């Protein structure tokens, strides 16, 4: 009566549609990590001296650190000397000056991924920075953005062209000593996106970075820095995919957001790294540090994430609410299937007066996966009148998956108010029977029920992304009904 095992397997097989490999000539470092490799990387990028020094300091600190093991995930030990730290498509020029100079094979790759970079086909209202393995290959809509005073470029360009901003803010939110993966990233990050929105400017379009891992045995270490100056507003989207490979690949990114007085940053992620096959072979290790500093009064940062990919995810987009009346928000949907493991959540650190934060987390587990919400809400002694609302909901599909919630609350201020709600539910047989009795396919029924469960988060996403996210869940859930 239910879908047969064979059908289920076939559905899973066509699960990941971004799994293709682009055949392109690359310049790739031999695997291994030492100070020479870092110096070479810095030289290729034509970085100023300050950057190399910072990288080396980070590397030396990293050597003294140990890999964290507190997360509720398990994976074989990573050999950091078996990874290549730089891979870039070969090109004749130093930097392509216009899209015409970008390798057509690369343009085709992004087209296939639904991100056309050609002028005439560019996504209306969305400027894109395309990062391929270790380098940014193209950035669209640079001119209209420049007219508004918005800087939107690769971090490599920013290091060269805007050293005063980079030196001031890089590492100011996530220092290289913060944690093991942030330390590694600071030493070897190869590219990423830089955004600066000047005082009082409302960024005229959505900004977006599309990360693509292509090369084998290569780590992707991108670094994103977004600065919203006083009274400015910016909405930024991030998407990511990778080919299907049997080996695990490491992705250790750092994202830093800085919001000054009255500034607002909205950061949305649809993470769809290759999750591994149905037996848990392959897939991306996604060990990411994302943090926002609301340093200005009345500033606001909102994280929205839809996580469906990666074999192992370790990620806690956080807000340090330093400015008085600053606001932090975290809306998350994390879906795990097959053997995927996710340990994700957020930290809301309330330091300023009347700061407030909202956490809405929706975890969906299917197959034999494990899905963890881990969250910290902390109130400092000065956080008079601060408040937090947390809602953690877990949805289980089948009976071989797991959902765990680890909420931590620390308060050093008596006036702080914290509310926490948590639920765990199953896609019930009754719900499935109702849908099927109305003629609806079991697969479609599950995806409809799951989409309903995620509604509160999806409504926070920009329109195009919300549709995309809904579709993504559908694809990821294929084969979850046995």
């Amino acid at each position, binding site marked *: 009566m239910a879908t047969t095992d064979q059908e289920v397997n076939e559905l899973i097989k066509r699960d990941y549609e971004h799994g293709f490999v682009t055949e392109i000539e690359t310049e790739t470092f031999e695997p291994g990590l030492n100070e020479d490799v870092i110096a070479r990387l810095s030289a290729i990028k034509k970085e100023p001296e300050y950057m190399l020094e910072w990288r080396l300091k980070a590397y030396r600190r990293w050597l003294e650190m140990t890999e964290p093991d507190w997360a509720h995930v398990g994976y074989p030990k990573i050999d950091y000397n078996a990874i290549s730290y730089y891979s870039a498509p070969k090109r004749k020029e130093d930097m392509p000056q216009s899209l015409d100079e970008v390798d057509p094979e690369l343009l085709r790759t992004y087209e296939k991924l639904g991100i056309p970079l050609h002028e005439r086909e560019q996504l209306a209202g969305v400027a894109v920075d395309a990062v391929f393995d270790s380098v940014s290959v193209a950035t669209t809509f640079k001119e209209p953005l420049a007219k508004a005073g918005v800087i939107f470029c690769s971090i490599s360009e920013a290091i060269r062209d805007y050293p005063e901003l980079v030196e001031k803010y890089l590492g100011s939110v996530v220092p290289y000593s913060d944690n093991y993966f942030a330390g590694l990233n600071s030493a070897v990050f190869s590219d990423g996106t830089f955004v600066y929105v000047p005082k009082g400017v409302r960024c005229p379009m959505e900004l977006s970075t599309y990360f693509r891992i292509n090369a084998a045995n290569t780590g992707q270490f991108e670094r994103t820095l977004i600065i919203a100056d006083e009274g400015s507003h910016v909405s930024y989207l991030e998407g990511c995919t990778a080919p299907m490979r049997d080996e695990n690949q490491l992705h250790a990114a750092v994202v830093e957001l800085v919001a000054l007085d009255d500034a607002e940053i909205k950061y949305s992620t649809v993470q769809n790294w290759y999750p591994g096959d149905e037996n848990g072979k392959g897939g991306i290790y996604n060990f990411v540090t994302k943090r926002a500093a609301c340093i200005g009064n009345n500033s606001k940062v909102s994280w929205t994430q839809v996580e469906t990919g990666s074999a192992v995810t370790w990620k806690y987009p956080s807000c340090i609410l330093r400015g008085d009346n600053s606001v932090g928000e975290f809306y998350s949907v994390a879906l795990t299937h097959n053997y995927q493991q996710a340990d994700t959540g957020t930290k809301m650190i309330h330091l300023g007066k009347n700061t407030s934060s909202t956490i809405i987390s929706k975890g969906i587990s299917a197959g034999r996966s494990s899905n963890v919400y881990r969250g910290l809400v902390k109130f400092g002694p000065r956080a008079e009148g601060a408040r937090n609302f947390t809602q953690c909901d877990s949805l289980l599909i089948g009976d071989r998956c797991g959902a765990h919630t680890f909420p931590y609350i620390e308060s050093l201020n008596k006036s702080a108010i914290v509310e926490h709600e948590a639920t765990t539910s199953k896609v019930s047989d009754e719900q499935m*029977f*109702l*849908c099927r009795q109305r*003629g*609806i396919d079991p697969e*479609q029924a599950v995806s*409809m*029920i799951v989409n*309903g469960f995620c509604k509160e988060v999806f409504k926070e996403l920009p329109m195009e992304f919300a549709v995309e996210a809904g579709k993504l869940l559908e694809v990821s859930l294929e084969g979850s009904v046995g």
Partner: protein
Amino acid sequence: MLSIKNLHASVEGNEILKGINLEIKAGEVHAIMGPNGSGKSTLSQVLAGNDAFEVTSGEVTLNGENLLEKATEDRARDGVFLAFQYPVEIPGVSNMQFMRTAVNTMRHHNGESEMNAAEFMKHAREVSKQVDLDPAFLKRGVNEGFSGGEKKRNEIMQALLLQPKLAILDETDSGLDIDALKVVSDGVNALRSEDRSILMVTHYQRLLDHIVPDYVHVLSDGKIVKSGGPELALELEERGYAWLGIKDEATAASSALSNSAN
């Protein structure tokens, strides 16, 4: 239309249906009555294809096709509709989205073009009036926070939208006040047509004042023990079930504890 021969079914090893025989022709309305635990709801669930029940023997055909070998959704697409006794909630999924998905699945199955959101909205508003449901209900989550009566009206609304060949109404009258009963009955009467069969499962005669059946069957301990015309319902109303040699309500109710469907 529907032909049931010697149907046996059990849940968790307990046999609930012990040889049901029933023929329903197109255009006919049949009522199944009986005390709690007699197997009324089990019969509805088995016909609709609920996996929780196991058919151990017997045969059910709809227009000559073997119903029992088909998946729930395929039976639905062939025109089997079950109005649930206790419709379940699906939080966050709007009634509108749910109904449009169901209607379009059916249209697709019948080789008709799908309805877009605007077309469906217009159509759904019309139908919602028929069951006296505020169109605002279309935007709410499926059965989310609906009262008992609203859930029942919502079920009938779905029947009107889907235009089934065989509509099975499982205790559609339970928990309704007189006004709501009238609205629901009007909805069901609107469903009556020459090419549609209706099977009503009910505990009380009062529903049959509004929807006059062609035949009434009395179910007891998993078997049909008496069949007749509408006058049989009136007789049951007057004399109870005891004159048919059926255990009284209290004993029947205790045996019903093992029947999870009731």
